[in-house]
């Protein structure tokens, strides 16, 4: 028999990690949002004591999200970019994950390695490579002109939302495929066999068995990529650099980068967290429901 304390001990590193690298920094952001600034250095002075919180700056920032106010348009733009990128990632990534999970036999290992391959190169470098590919004298434009597809290719890097969305898809898709693959792998194959035995066509089996059972995987993978996408600022910076494609992360960057308004940056971060928290709660409720539906 093992002592009672043994298994909980295993959770200590995880709890410590969560405390030190998430809860404490997150509380610091809250403290900055409701705190002040050093009168000399303009650096944030977090208000650690909730009794000292000053809500003025955060409320002003929140009002900025009302239609027509300063953050409304940039918030809509960010939500639009993330929604399109996420949908595209799912449309591209799901079939890839499905193929690897169901149909790749001997090649599964190689395909997995190929999926991980992009992680070998830093995100920043991959984005910079895109700048070269899409520049007016880059390979993409050369190909489009040579092939006759587009004798006058679009200006990809000139505040073009399509380029930013494509870059987001390219940058984040590996993070979607891997958890999706794990979720698809976990689906009991005998359920599919049962569906086929009961006369379901491959398509019906997919839509009535595989897809519903992979819902939690889809949601999990979506959450994993949607969260960083919402806060992304370097992708639009590198790919476009235009005010037309600026995202909410760029606003946070401006206010946190220096100056007397770190509380605005922190309040924007909190707003984003609350918004994403709503999506997260939906994900958790869905997971809980799915677990309840599993017969004991």
């Amino acid at each position, binding site marked *: 028999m093992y002592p009672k304390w043994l298994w909980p001990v295993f959770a200590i590193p995880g709890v410590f990690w969560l405390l030190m690298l998430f809860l404490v920094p997150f509380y610091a952001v809250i403290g900055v949002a409701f705190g002040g600034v050093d009168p000399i*250095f303009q650096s944030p002075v977090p208000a650690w004591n909730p009794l000292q919180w000053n809500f003025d700056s955060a409320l002003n920032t929140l009002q900025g999200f009302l239609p027509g106010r300063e953050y409304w348009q940039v918030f809509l733009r960010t939500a639009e970019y993330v929604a399109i990128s996420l949908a595209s990632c799912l449309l591209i990534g799901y079939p890839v994950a499905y193929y690897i999970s169901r149909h790749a036999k001997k090649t599964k290992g190689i395909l997995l390695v190929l999926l991980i391959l992009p992680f070998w190169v830093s995100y920043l470098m991959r984005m910079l490579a895109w700048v070269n590919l899409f520049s007016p004298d880059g390979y993409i434009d050369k190909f489009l002109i040579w092939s006759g597809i587009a004798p006058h290719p679009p*200006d990809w890097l000139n505040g073009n939302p399509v380029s930013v969305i494509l870059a987001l898809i390219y940058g984040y898709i590996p993070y979607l495929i891997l958890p999706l693959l794990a979720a698809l792998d976990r689906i009991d194959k005998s359920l599919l066999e049962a569906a086929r035995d009961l006369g379901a066509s491959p398509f019906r089996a997919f839509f009535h068995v595989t897809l519903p059972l992979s819902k939690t995987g889809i949601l999990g993978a979506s959450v994993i990529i949607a969260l960083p996408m919402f806060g992304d600022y370097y992708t639009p910076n590198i790919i476009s650099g235009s005010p037309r494609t600026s995202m909410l992360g760029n606003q946070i960057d401006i206010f946190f980068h220096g100056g007397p308004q770190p509380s605005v940056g922190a309040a924007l971060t909190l707003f984003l967290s609350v918004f994403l928290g709503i999506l997260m709660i939906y994900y958790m409720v869905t997971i809980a429901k799915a677990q309840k539906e599993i017969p004991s």
Partner: protein
Amino acid sequence: MIDNTFERKRLLAQLREERIARRKLLKAFGSAGLAAAALPLLGRGAFADEAGKQAGPGGLALARPDRPVTLPLYEDPIKSGLAPETGGTFRVFNYQDYIDKNLLTSFGKLYNVDVELTTFDSMDQCITRLATHGVAPDVSDITPDRLDQCVAGKLIKPINKDYIPNLKANIWPSLHSPFYDVGSQYGVPYTIYKTGIGWRDDKISEDIPNLANPWSIFWNSQKYSGYVGVLDDARESLSMAMCYRGQYDVNTEDPAQIDAALNDLKALIPICNPKINITEYQTLPQGNMWLHQSWSGDLLGAYVFYLPKGDDGSHLRFWGAPKGKGPIQNDTFAICSTTTKPVLAHLFLNYILDKDVAYGNFINFTGYQPPQVSITGDSLLASKAIPQNLKNVILTSDDAGPGSMQEMTLTPKGQALWQSAYARFNSGT
């Protein structure tokens, strides 16, 4: 129990926002038992003047080219005639690629020390890291608009100019006693540059310098859409819009003027879809940008380091506004309060003002002009260090000093106005 630090900072912040008078502040400090702690911050008569001018960091007066400020001394400089420290590591804190490492190595050999360069990305980062003791350098690059902040926060030490004869011998007379630090008590000028317009004359057909209002080229650049850029800097970008409108107080805190500048900047978006970045030193010579708000030093950097093979750079152009009609900025070097080698730090300041060292650093590495008497457009042209088309990148002593336009320290309220306006431009809303 009162949190003294928090309370002290709150009271000082109130003072700065002019919500309480000085007398009331002292009373408040006294009642909180904080007078002793706060008085050093208030300085020796360094409060804002009686005419109601607003106070800057720590209650120090805000310096302007026509309103010089003597920064307070919280300690005496080191005595003259001391021997330099040897051995160990001498730490230099600067922007990346803003000082030639070979010169640092030479300085180390000269005084038998290892020289270590630590870099920062922005002046905000520099100040934060100095203030939080994230670094402990001996000397640091500081811009004049942050010098008062460093003095108020005691991040830098006063200098003894006996160790720095090159200041008077080699540096422009207009910067011997600059308006932001009368008597050069804390820093020595390192580089100087104008903010103007950089362009390629093989792509831009207009004769920009001879336009009635050269700044207007940005607002008439429809045909160059996609190849136009604005500096990624709140002060610089909004100042450009102000200059375009003939509003030459680029230290204004008037919300109406800042809003007008913002509206003018926003008007650029449908006109030329500007890019917001500070990479014009690379994108102009490589042809990715044709017209860019530019720092003069970046045009020389572009010419020296970033021209494509076979390109002689003859199409690069720069225009800087005449004195008082466009921003001129400079960097300084100061001795940090964390220095363990104060004598050597003085000698380093003298070293970077040496005319050969400064010239080498300028021509071989940074592209940013040191305000050296010996460096003139004619001499650089004669030595073929610069081409004729970029001769006007080189500034003269007359460009600096009274009557010039320099973006300087604002009150926090003013900074917030500028920053919020810039954020709106950046978001395109």
